[in-house]
């Protein structure tokens, strides 16, 4: 946990920290990760509800998205060349730019700009956007005149590029892509500028026509030919992955990677590429039928040592998905409800958040409406497919519930629930049924059988002892019958007692290890499926306890009772994925 400890969890946000210090804005201290960020983000969303504070809400979301992406791509701090947008009219220092490139923009106005950002650092005057807007609104200056004047400006700041992008886009047809070209030019001069990056990212994610995306991406890979290319264009790749066949993605990426490799020759940075692969693999694992995913995983694993901790977590998450996909066919074939859950899982990795949320809520309703179907879909027997499925389902449901389910309430009265769980176990144990009667009879039979065997062993042992004495000792005693019989009786009883005692200790274990153990397992399994499990489901429905609390209470109650049916009930409940899935759905109840 990397939230500042001395801060009030409900304290209002310090807006002066945006956009230059989003980490402090989110009240995070050094070394924070994405989990800390998300926690803090959710706290702020609770404070600034969108219906009451729409402007603040939007700022928080934008800052969160930007910082989250930066964290994922290993650029948690704003770029060194970032301009001060909050005082756009102040002087700024132009950084040493990246290389200039104009292969795709030779015929545009943006390429007539010859001086932006090139050369050594120089003090530059940023444009006063407010004043410019005033002049344009009042008619003191025409749009095209202002645009042409700005194009000629020697050293441009990000606000200059922003103004050029807006004015160029307004004066020329959209096909000329002046908005994008000026923004990219700005990013060439001011690498990593948050505002320009946000605009490019947003444009690619929401406005660039899907059919033009491959060409645009290739063009951008020539302009921003470094590891930052991947972060900047992630939104466009996401659209390609979702709306075009996977081959389009793979081919376009291949071309872009070649351009980036050529442009970034000698630059060892691969953090952006690794983060991007991890992002694309979320989708590729489900959709790629060729070998891209294998190559990508290989690349990621090759650079495992250089990955930050939170990306290792992402990789672990992907490995869990991979494990599930290995059992997917088996999982889905077992029951229609499982196919529904699988469809939601797939959507979670391949579709938009809104659609995922809707599918998830509908599916949870279905689960909640029919515990019988859940019990049928997830039999009490352990299965690798269910084991692979459950962590993904639990994580995804929890994520959706944290956004859409009613807030989690105050602590439950565990003392009350423990009493009720004890009662549940006791009543389940005592529940009359054919299975339990058979089991009880089998217990009685086992006792009688054990006694019969011991009696038999005792008789045999006695006979052997007695007859042995009679056969070997009587001739030596010269026919002293009375004395020998007495001795034979004593020895016979002694042998009998020893044999019975040994058998009493040993035989039940032998019986348990061979027949009885397997029989009990089978009977317990039947009893659980037919008698105890419906009661457990009914209890879950009534109690609305979360599965892990219920499981813990059952384990405690069973441990406090002597080893009997309650131990079996607890044993089965601990591994019952049906109960767990049903319990998760209960979080969505209103």
């Amino acid at each position: 946990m990397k939230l500042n400890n001395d801060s009030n969890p409900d304290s209002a946000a310090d807006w002066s920290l945006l956009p230059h210090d989003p980490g402090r804005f989110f009240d995070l201290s050094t070394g924070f990760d994405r989990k800390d960020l998300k926690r803090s983000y959710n706290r702020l969303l609770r404070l600034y509800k969108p219906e009451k504070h729409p402007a603040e809400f939007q700022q928080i979301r934008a800052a969160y998205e930007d910082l989250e992406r930066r964290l994922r791509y290993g650029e948690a701090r704003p770029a060194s060349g970032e301009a001060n947008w909050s005082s756009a009219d102040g002087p700024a220092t132009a950084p040493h730019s990246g290389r200039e490139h104009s292969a795709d923009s030779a015929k545009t106005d943006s390429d007539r700009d010859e001086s932006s950002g090139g050369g050594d650092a120089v003090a530059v005057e940023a444009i006063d956007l407010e004043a410019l807007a005033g002049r344009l609104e009042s008619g003191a200056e025409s749009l095209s005149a202002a645009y042409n004047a700005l194009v000629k400006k020697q050293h441009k700041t990000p606000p200059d590029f922003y103004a050029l992008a807006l004015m160029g886009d307004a004066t020329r047809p959209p096909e000329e892509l002046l908005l994008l070209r000026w923004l990219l030019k700005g990013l060439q001069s001011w690498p990593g500028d948050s505002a320009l990056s946000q605009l490019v990212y947003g444009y690619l994610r929401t406005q660039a026509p899907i059919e033009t995306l491959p060409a645009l991406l290739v063009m951008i890979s020539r302009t921003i030919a470094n590891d930052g290319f991947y972060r900047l264009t992630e939104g466009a790749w996401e659209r390609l992955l979702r709306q075009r066949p996977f081959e389009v993605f793979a081919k376009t990426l291949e071309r872009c990677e070649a351009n980036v490799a050529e442009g970034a020759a000698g630059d060892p940075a691969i953090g952006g590429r690794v983060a991007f692969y991890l992002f694309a693999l979320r989708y590729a694992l489900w959709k790629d039928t060729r070998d891209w995913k294998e190559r990508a995983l290989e690349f990621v694993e090759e650079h495992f040592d250089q990955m930050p901790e939170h990306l290792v977590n992402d990789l672990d998450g992907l490995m869990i998905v991979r494990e599930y996909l290995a059992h997917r066919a088996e999982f889905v074939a077992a029951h229609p409800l499982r196919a529904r859950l699988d469809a939601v899982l797939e959507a979670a990795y391949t579709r938009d958040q809104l659609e995922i949320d809707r599918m998830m809520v509908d599916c949870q309703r279905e689960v909640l409406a029919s515990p019988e179907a859940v019990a049928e879909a997830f039999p009490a027997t352990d299965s690798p497919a269910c084991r692979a499925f459950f962590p993904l389902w639990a994580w995804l449901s929890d994520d959706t519930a944290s956004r859409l389910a009613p807030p989690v309430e105050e602590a439950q009265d565990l003392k009350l629930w423990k009493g009720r769980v004890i009662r549940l176990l006791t009543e389940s144990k005592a529940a009359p049924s054919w299975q339990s009667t058979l089991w009880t009879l089998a217990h009685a039979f086992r006792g009688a059988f054990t006694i019969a065997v011991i009696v038999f062993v005792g008789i045999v042992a006695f006979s052997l002892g007695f007859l042995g004495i009679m056969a070997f000792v009587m001739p030596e005693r010269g026919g002293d019958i009375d004395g020998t019989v007495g001795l034979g009786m004593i020895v016979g009883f002694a042998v009998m007692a020893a044999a019975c005692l040994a058998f009493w200790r040993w035989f039940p274990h032998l019986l348990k290890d061979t027949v009885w153990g397997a029989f009990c397992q089978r009977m317990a399994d039947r009893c659980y499926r037919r008698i105890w499990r419906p009661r457990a489901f009914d209890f879950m429905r009534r109690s609305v306890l979360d599965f892990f609390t219920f499981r813990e209470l059952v384990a405690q109650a069973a441990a406090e009772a002597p080893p009997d049916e309650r131990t079996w009930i607890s044993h089965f409940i601990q591994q019952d994925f049906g109960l767990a899935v049903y319990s998760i759905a209960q979080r969505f109840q209103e």
Partner: protein
Amino acid sequence: MIRCLRLNPMWQADQVLASRAALHGVDAAIPNPQQAALDERARKAALRNKVYKLRDKVWTASRDDLRKRLSQLSLEGEPELAALADRLRVIVDARAKLPQLTEHRDFDGDFFECFQKVLTGSVRQSAEMRERVAASFQDRRLKKRGLRMIKLLREKVPELTAMEEPWFKLLKSRCGSVSGMFVVDTNVSTFSRAWIGVAIVLIFQLFYRLAKLLVEVE
């Protein structure tokens, strides 16, 4: 577009792009997916707050006011909240009959208070209250009072009891439960062992009497 010059693209990029889409007549139908999900979350949270506020005052606020507010709710696509609103409507309508109930000799104020909490508590609060009452039914006196009250409620406000019918059935079924009468959260094996002890004593007594009888006969 000029307006966009006054926006800060750092956190108003969506607005800038939306203005641009409007300018060019570009299809801006691809919303920011994160924003769309957040909007949906906010919409649902706002609706939930409205319904929960009505739930909190359903026993105290003016019935006409509650009816009006409930009718103003638009809960399409939210079946859980719609079901909760329907529940509140039934309670509001039934409230008029409740004062007469209190005069009945079988009326049990404690049980009724619990019933109110079950009807209008949150999911977990209601579940806890139901189990608390079920646990209290182990006390014969409370059980008797409770059963009378359930009967009264079923007669006078069937629309309210219908909403909690499974719970009432559970409470009634507990009455005839043998395990409920003899084994109350205790250890059954201890109970069984006690019976085995008694049986052994009886068998010894039987043998003793038989031996005594045989001696007497001889």
